[in-house]
């Protein structure tokens, strides 16, 4: 029988009435690695944020060494020996390795930092991990893999019993990954406990002892790794029914309109695909599959090598302006950052990409025409707003999203790229957006829909492209696509 270090029991969490965790339990065993897996949005991060005191739980109890504990903030969980290493490392790049390890806990003697002691101690912890770096070296000068080890050294130096690693290998080279796994095995030997969050199932089979699977904020099960294979884990991660939420309409796709050949840059590698008139191509993949980066490369935000053909003609797209002129519009996944302008009103947002349509005398904007046209789109897309002069910040997420789509639509695109079109949008508005997609499709527009929501991809797409780490790992026709087949391609099972 394994000894339990941390036991989270019946944890629930609401965010303003929305349940994101429902009665979830998680055990962390001494000297053992627990994998925590699930699709994007399954509740893994929320659960870990509760354990580390970032969020407060709504219900449930946490036991540490069989004692009930409460973590009101991150400091409280740290002092009990729980450390987390985030995917995007929390190091101060312009400080030395030693300074980072002891940040906020510098050894002090009569008000002066004892630099020699600090760096000596840092050296001790680095040595434990087999890292030969000078503790005085600045963090920005060492590789990401080594930065990861510095984070682990930091965790060890606060005498962490439990170390949570969130997608630790995301930015590592294979050699660095092997090194990390050696370190994890050593940590296990010395009695530390690890929670390992990863989408890469083969890694889980390499170093984890147990697996806990979450789906839609619920616990699906805890199993020992011996009792599982990749297919079983995938089945546990997905496996839910498609509801009537997705009103896909059948259509006969026309001739090929877009062809992308061998597109490569710092994000994507040799991506090729094609798109037909009146077709909805779903693009699935996990975090780090670079789907968004691919779409932005096509849209002219990131330069890329390779060829793009429109109606059989080769085109060169160097900027969003070029792309819009060719009839390719992109609706971003990050509305606030680069989709809408919250300080401007509905009308100004909708017409921003197409102001040349409203040319009046002396080069002035004809506000009358602009007003009529934006009203038309508000109606067409049933945007709920008090009027065209309403500032966008006062609209709900779903309506902001519709404004963002309307802006692209007004440029009269032949190809509409929708990147996570239903993210941060409530259920009712989601359905409305699906209906719009179908409407565009029936009008002959071609649609590329990037989504992390697999049921959505299955429900709306005519064809599905799955990506894994910047490459296309496969295409699935509508009739052969299942959650399992998508997930299998998304974790890169066949491409390893």
């Amino acid at each position: 029988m394994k000894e339990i270090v941390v036991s989270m029991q019946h944890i629930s969490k609401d965010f303003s009435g929305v349940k994101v965790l429902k009665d979830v339990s998680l055990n962390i065993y001494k000297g053992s690695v627990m994998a925590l897996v699930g699709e994007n949005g399954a509740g893994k991060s929320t659960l870990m944020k509760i354990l580390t005191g970032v969020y407060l739980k709504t219900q449930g109890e946490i036991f540490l060494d069989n004692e009930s504990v409460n973590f009101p903030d991150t400091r409280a969980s740290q002092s009990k020996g729980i450390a987390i290493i985030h995917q995007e490392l929390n190091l101060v790049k312009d400080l030395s390795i030693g300074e980072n390890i002891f940040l906020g806990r510098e050894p002090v003697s009569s008000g002066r930092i004892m630099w020699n002691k600090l760096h000596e101690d840092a050296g001790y912890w680095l040595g434990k991990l087999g890292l030969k770096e000078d503790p005085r070296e600045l963090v920005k000068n060492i590789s990401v893999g080594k930065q990861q080890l510095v984070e682990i050294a930091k965790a060890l130096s606060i005498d962490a019993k439990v170390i949570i690693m969130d997608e630790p290998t995301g930015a590592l080279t294979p050699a660095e990954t092997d090194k990390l796994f050696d370190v994890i095995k050593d940590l296990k030997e010395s009695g530390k406990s690890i929670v390992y969050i990863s989408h890469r199932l083969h890694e889980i089979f390499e170093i984890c002892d147990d697996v806990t699977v979450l789906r839609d904020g619920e616990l699906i099960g805890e199993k020992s790794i011996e009792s599982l294979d990749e297919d079983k884990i995938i089945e546990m991660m997905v496996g839910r029914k498609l509801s009537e939420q997705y009103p896909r309409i059948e259509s006969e796709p026309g001739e090929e309109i877009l062809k992308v050949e061998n597109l490569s840059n710092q994000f994507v590698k040799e991506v090729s695909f094609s798109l037909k008139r009146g077709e909805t191509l779903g693009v699935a993949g996990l975090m780090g599959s670079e789907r968004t980066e691919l779409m932005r490369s096509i849209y002219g935000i990131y330069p890329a090598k390779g060829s793009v053909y429109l109606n059989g003609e080769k085109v060169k797209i160097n900027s969003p302006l070029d792309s819009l002129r060719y009839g390719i519009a992109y609706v971003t996944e990050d509305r606030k950052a680069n989709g809408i302008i919250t300080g401007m009103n509905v009308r100004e947002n909708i017409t921003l990409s197409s102001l040349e349509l409203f040319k009046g005398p002396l080069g002035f904007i004809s506000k009358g025409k602009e007003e009529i046209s934006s009203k038309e789109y508000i109606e067409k897309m049933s945007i709920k707003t008090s009027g065209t002069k309403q500032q966008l910040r006062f609209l709900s997420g779903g309506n902001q999203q519709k404004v963002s789509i309307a802006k692209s639509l007004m440029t009269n695109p032949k190809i509409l790229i929708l990147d996570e079109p239903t993210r941060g949008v409530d259920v009712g508005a989601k359905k409305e957006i699906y209906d719009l997609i179908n409407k565009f499709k029936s009008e002959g527009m071609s649609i590329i829909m990037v989504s992390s929501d697999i049921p959505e991809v299955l429900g709306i797409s005519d064809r599905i492209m799955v990506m894994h780490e910047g490459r296309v790992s496969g295409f699935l026709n509508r009739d052969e696509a299942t959650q399992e087949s998508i997930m299998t391609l998304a974790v890169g099972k066949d491409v390893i």
Partner: protein
Amino acid sequence: MNNVKKILKNKPLIVLIAASVAIALLNPRFLSWSNILTVLRQTSINAVIATGMTFAILIGGIDLSVGSVLGLCGAIAATMVSSGTNVVLAVLTVLVLGTAIGYFNGTLITAGGLQPFIATLGTVTLLRGAILVFTQGRPISTGNTAASEHFSEIGTGFLGPIPIPVYIMLLVFIVAYYILNHTRIGRYIYATGSNEEATMYSGIKTARVKRFVYAVSGMMAALAGILLTARLGSAQPTAGAGYELDAIAAVVLGGTSMAGGIGTIGGTAIGALIIGVLNNALNLMKVSSYYQDVAKGIVILIAVLLDRKQKSSR
């Protein structure tokens, strides 16, 4: 009723009216026709610079080089007219030069990737040096050729009862208002200042928008240089030093956000008038010039604080 509410909401306007009433009560001469014209004429130079500055601040930038552009352009205009060059040619040359310097600033910021503060700070030093080289550190008189007669009209002349610089100021306000509110580039300026990334994603070349904005700012500074030199009849090598600060103060007093995206030309006009009225009042009341800046600074800070308080409490 609605209009009254609108006015009450306009904090800068209320500050201007309150300050004017208070000053008029203290010194009735403030409201005399000739004094009002003096205030307007004195305000015109700062108002023109502040209009260009409004463009720069609206895109979330700043242009510290306006004072030195004014100095250099004034010196070149003075040299040209004193040697008898046609006034129109001199004015156009100087305006083109100011625009080019502004465009250069914009290029440093967009292509060079410099912070606007740093880029234009560098230009200040460069231009101040250029002025000293050009003038040899001595004032340049506009001379007494036929051209210089015409030239000084720009700064000292009247059209009917109103001084010519006041017409120029009004013209600048109107054109700027139309550009910002009724043209594509105006819309793009607000959009870039509010969310540059989203604007770029919408298919707008934001770098072009920025270069346009700094070019406008440079052109306005050159125009101010013409007004000042024409008014004084000579170009001082130190002319314009510190003018960027009054211009920024006018813009901010007018309610424009330093973060970009929010602000109006009307606000800037009022802001410039507040500073003009304040300068005038301090002179009327014979406050020592040492204390004038102290008083001005205090009033500016109070006005801006009042404005921010209101905005954050909504």
